[in-house]
């Protein structure tokens, strides 16, 4: 029960130093949500303020939706969590990354996108939420390669 998430809700900055006590249960509600809004509600990250300090490095055009590389850096001090939401996917929440103080708020991953969509990244720092968005176009391919 001593999860990072709960500690953060209390905004007790010092306790962030503590490592994860146990693997938090997979967030069924958030990952099962069918809209970006519900997904963000599921992880308790609604009402995020737009921020230029979240850097989303991704191609504007993906040649194939099966693999869309995304690299995310949060330059917001004290970032403890980054959530990746693909608005038009059937289940928008793609991942949520929780960092202790020993990890940098950075992740690079490959995601699937069913169609052209905004990708929204929500970073959490000291209990407050910040968001940045990038549109990625998914194109139809020829036979090439």
């Amino acid at each position, binding site marked *: 029960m001593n999860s990072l998430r709960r500690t953060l809700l209390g905004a007790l900055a010092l306790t962030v130093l503590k490592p994860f006590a146990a693997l938090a249960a997979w967030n069924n509600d958030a990952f099962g949500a069918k809209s970006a809004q519900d997904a963000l509600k599921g992880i308790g990250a609604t009402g995020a303020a737009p921020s230029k300090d979240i850097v989303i490095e991704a*191609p504007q*055009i993906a040649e194939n939706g*099966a*693999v869309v*590389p995304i690299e995310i850096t949060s330059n917001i001090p004290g970032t403890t969590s980054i959530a990746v939401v693909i608005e038009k996917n059937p289940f928008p929440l793609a991942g949520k990354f929780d960092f202790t103080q020993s990890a940098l708020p950075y992740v690079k991953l490959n995601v699937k996108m069913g169609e052209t969509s905004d990708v929204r990244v929500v970073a959490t720092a000291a209990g407050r939420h910040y968001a940045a968005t990038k549109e990625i176009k998914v194109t139809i391919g020829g*036979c*090439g*390669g």
Partner: protein
Amino acid sequence: MKRLSLLLALAFCVPAPAQDAKKEIQKYQQMIADGSPVELFEIGGEELWKKPQGPKKVSLEKCDLGRGAGVVKGAYARLPRYFKDADRVMDLESRLLYCMSMLQGRSAEEATKRVFGNQDTPSEMEYLSAYIAGQSRGEKMAPGTTHAKEKEAFALGEKLFFHRAGPWDFSCASCHGEENKRIRMQDLPVLSKPAAARPVVATWPAYRVSNSQFKTMQWRINDCYRQMRMPEPVFASEATIAVNLFLAATGKGEPYRGPGTKR
């Protein structure tokens, strides 16, 4: 007349964003290469290389890929080439079949039963290609071009490359014959020209993200013929090796940086 052609130019010219699109697609390709799972296939291939198989229950570790029995390092970069023991030109896949027969005692029928795998179960050829090609990283591509049979294979490959047939009248050059063309968004390298062939031969075999599968050069040629609406080329047949050698020799000199990652 002048006005009409100007009008046509305006109507048909490629809009400026196309340049940006090209840059973004290059960025996509760079990023998928950086985040490629291709090494997982190399691990799987090394395991198969060392696994005793066939009636003789031996591994392929004594297989001579052209640089001596058991030498894997740099071997892929020197293929296809002429092999004296078999008295023919071989690419990686045909040479592996030869070793499977000679060393492991396996029949061609059994060894070629499942040469193209799928997402869930890649084929033995795919794993082995990943491992062996990966051992040529940084080595300059230098396929055989001097032996008489290598020259013959090159000439045949070139002929095949330009040969139009089938219900759609296609040759390889129908798609890969003109500069700065693309199918959908995919750039089409003019594979008969060194500048375009070099980066291609230096990055096959490859992991394809569109179907999350590792694919060999034999597969690449096979699938082109499928899309040309032709009958199926026999795996590791002389025709396929000839096309492969034609491409490899045209693109020689580039340091190998595969196995690649493609759309």
